[in-house]
């Protein structure tokens, strides 16, 4: 009998204790922000979004610097080396390249690199991409990188393919490649001729 009442009292007590906690959190203010109205990328706008209340208490306000969003490529330092394409586990990068004039450049990490090939196509299908960062890590120049962008609403599927090489540039590169091929062939022929001539002199 005693136990029976004890249980009852205990039950009511603990329920009220829980209720007090629930009630207390009513006055805490929201822990979330209303996303489209607030620019979640910046620290200040989140505070404004919460209208000066105690606000978002998390450790982080806004987005971290290393956020892994949609990929971007800096074509001016990309050497079209295909390393990123091979690293991607789901094949969502497509690169084709042709020979180009040799060019020395400086990567983002300060390391020098040499470009011997130019990309005629550099497409990333962000509809397939899982933002894993495996392509970013091995890139020798740091040309490919994640941005803070995460909104991917496009009105058609085609829009989800990022093309980093404009058709004109691609054409230019291919033309130049053809020229280079011709030049090299000429050079080779000239070299061969010289050699033959040298041989002829020897004998």
């Amino acid at each position, binding site marked *: 009998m005693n136990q029976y009442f004890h249980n009852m009292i205990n039950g009511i007590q603990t329920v009220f204790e829980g209720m007090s906690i629930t009630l207390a959190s009513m006055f805490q203010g929201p822990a979330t922000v209303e996303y489209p109205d607030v620019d979640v990328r910046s620290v200040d706008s989140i505070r404004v979004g919460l209208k000066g209340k105690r606000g978002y208490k998390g450790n982080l306000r806004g987005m971290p610097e290393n956020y892994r969003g949609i990929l971007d490529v800096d074509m001016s330092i990309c050497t079209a080396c*295909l390393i990123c394409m091979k690293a991607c586990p789901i094949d969502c990068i*497509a690169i084709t390249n042709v020979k180009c004039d040799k060019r020395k450049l400086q990567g983002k990490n300060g390391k020098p690199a040499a470009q011997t090939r130019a990309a005629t196509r550099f497409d990333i299908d962000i509809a397939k991409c899982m933002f894993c960062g495996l392509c970013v890590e091995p890139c020798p120049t740091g040309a490919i990188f994640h941005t803070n962008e995460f909104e991917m609403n496009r009105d058609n*599927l085609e829009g989800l393919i990022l093309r980093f090489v404009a058709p004109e540039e691609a054409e230019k590169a291919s033309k130049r490649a053809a020229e280079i091929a011709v030049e090299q062939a000429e050079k080779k022929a000239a070299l061969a001729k010289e050699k033959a001539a040298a041989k002829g002199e020897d004998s």
Partner: protein
Amino acid sequence: MNTQDAFQLIQAKVSAPIQLLEGPTPSILVRPQGLVEVLTFAKEDPQLDCQVLTCQTGSHQEDEIRLFYHLLSHEQNHLFVFECPVPLSDPKAPSVTSLWPAANWLERETYDLLGVHFEGHPDLRRIMLPEDWEGFPLRKDYVTPTSYHDSGFDLTVDNRPSAITQSFNLSKGDEKEDE
């Protein structure tokens, strides 16, 4: 206790032929005929005391499917691996569900994905794939189907625009040639 000691112990006590396999993880090879006998001994011997069948799986190797049994003892804190080759032409192995109820689902999974028949299993059905699935996906000679029965579902549909799909095939092909 390491695998060598366990091997000697089992060899002394059990009549079924066993074999010690060296490698990065030493293991004990048992023929399907002696499997239940050896595993029962491993479970009931106080020195081995393998109360837990922690993992049961298999892998397809040329003309056989090799089953792996990982036995764990919580008391002694040791883990042994038993291998059991079954021929691909007639993949049959005795079930160990009577020893460990946990084997029920693990064997069903092996049956589902590798097509090994466990004789004496109380409820050998597919577990992951639909009941009417054809073939065993984890076998190396499995051909990925292009449709699911006649549901009109084309499993090869790729939502990549065709130009890109082609470029992939091309570029990957080139790369292979280069290497």
